[in-house]
């Protein structure tokens, strides 16, 4: 299926030993069957114990193994090599735009700082009912396509606006979550949330180039969520809040 040998070009960088990052070529025997990129990394690890990468659930749920595979961000554990291989070659790099700790492991501090900024939790100061805060099926439907995000950072690190301003632009992943709480009928801090996003950078640095949609391994649409946030920011906030309460 893939020829006899598979060539893997891997981004290597160990700040304790290397002055600069470099690409190292590995050749491995062709797999008997189609395997995931993460399995390929395990095979590489058998060859070279010093190869570093993050992984955990190996089934696209934890979001640990986001990386750049042949130029496109994705999760190694759910990306079959048959879907990315080109002329028997695969190039693996860390997620772009974030500082590299070692090899494919990146420092996610800036990404999580933006996530923290949008206050990703339900804010409702009214007295909690005995069991739970109820929603109608229609209200619950609004959260579909939003809550599924696993924070793998594939979208934010494929966004040039996030590369240039990771401290000011919230980024597609966190904005998807911001809209998840703006759309939630149980959350009562709509005005405060919109105020926090109203500056020229937080949301408006998104120019809608759709890289986020193109790479999301869960098939989500952060660009649509960002559009919804922009619509909310343009409308009269009081109207939005009033319609939330009805």
């Amino acid at each position, binding site marked *: 299926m893939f020829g006899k040998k598979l060539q893997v070009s891997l981004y290597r960088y160990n700040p304790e030993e290397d002055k600069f990052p470099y690409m190292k070529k590995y050749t491995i025997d062709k797999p008997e069957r189609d395997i995931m990129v993460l399995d390929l990394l395990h095979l590489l690890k058998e060859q070279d114990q010093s190869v570093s990468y993050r992984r955990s659930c190996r089934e696209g749920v934890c979001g640990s193994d986001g990386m750049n595979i042949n130029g496109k961000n994705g999760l190694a554990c759910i990306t079959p090599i048959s879907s990315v291989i080109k002329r028997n070659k695969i190039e693996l790099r860390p997620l772009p735009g974030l500082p590299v700790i070692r090899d494919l492991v990146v420092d996610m501090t800036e990404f999580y700082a933006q996530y923290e900024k949008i206050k990703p939790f339900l804010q409702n100061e009214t007295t909690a009912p005995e069991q739970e805060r109820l929603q109608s099926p229609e209200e619950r439907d609004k959260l579909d396509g939003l809550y599924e995000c696993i924070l793998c950072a594939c979208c934010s690190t494929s966004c*040039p606006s996030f590369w*240039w*301003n990771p401290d000011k632009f919230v980024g597609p992943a966190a904005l998807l979550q911001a809209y998840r709480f703006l759309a939630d009928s149980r959350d009562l801090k709509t005005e405060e949330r919109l105020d926090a996003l*109203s*500056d*020229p*950078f937080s949301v408006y640095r998104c120019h809608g180039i759709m890289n986020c949609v193109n790479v999301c391994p869960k098939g989500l649409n952060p660009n649509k969520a960002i559009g919804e946030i*922009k619509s909310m920011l*343009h409308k009269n906030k009081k109207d939005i809040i009033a319609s939330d309460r009805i």
Partner: protein
Amino acid sequence: MKGSMIWNLQRYSSLVILVYLVYVSSFIITTQGPISFFDWTKFFLSFQTRFFTSIACIFMLLHAYIGLWTVGTDYLTERTLGFLNKSLSKIANLMRKMYLFAFVMLGIVYLVVILYIIWI
């Protein structure tokens, strides 16, 4: 300034420029036969054309400033220039301010010259 205001300014200014282009194009398209120097002068010396040209120029400069400010705050920052060179990173903010200042000065000169040509 609010992000939505900048967003609106950029969109509405482009609409003003579009309307102006349609206005000038409609003159060119609807004029019978070849446009003479007299036709051209009469059109551009009319009050409404002078007024529309002035408005379109102001909005064009506003539109361009927002675009260039966006480019400057993307590429002329400590972080972005730091990818190229660490010493460039140290003067990135100064470079961006100079870049915007130069454009504002150029824009003001451009506007003054245009308004002078149109009205005086």
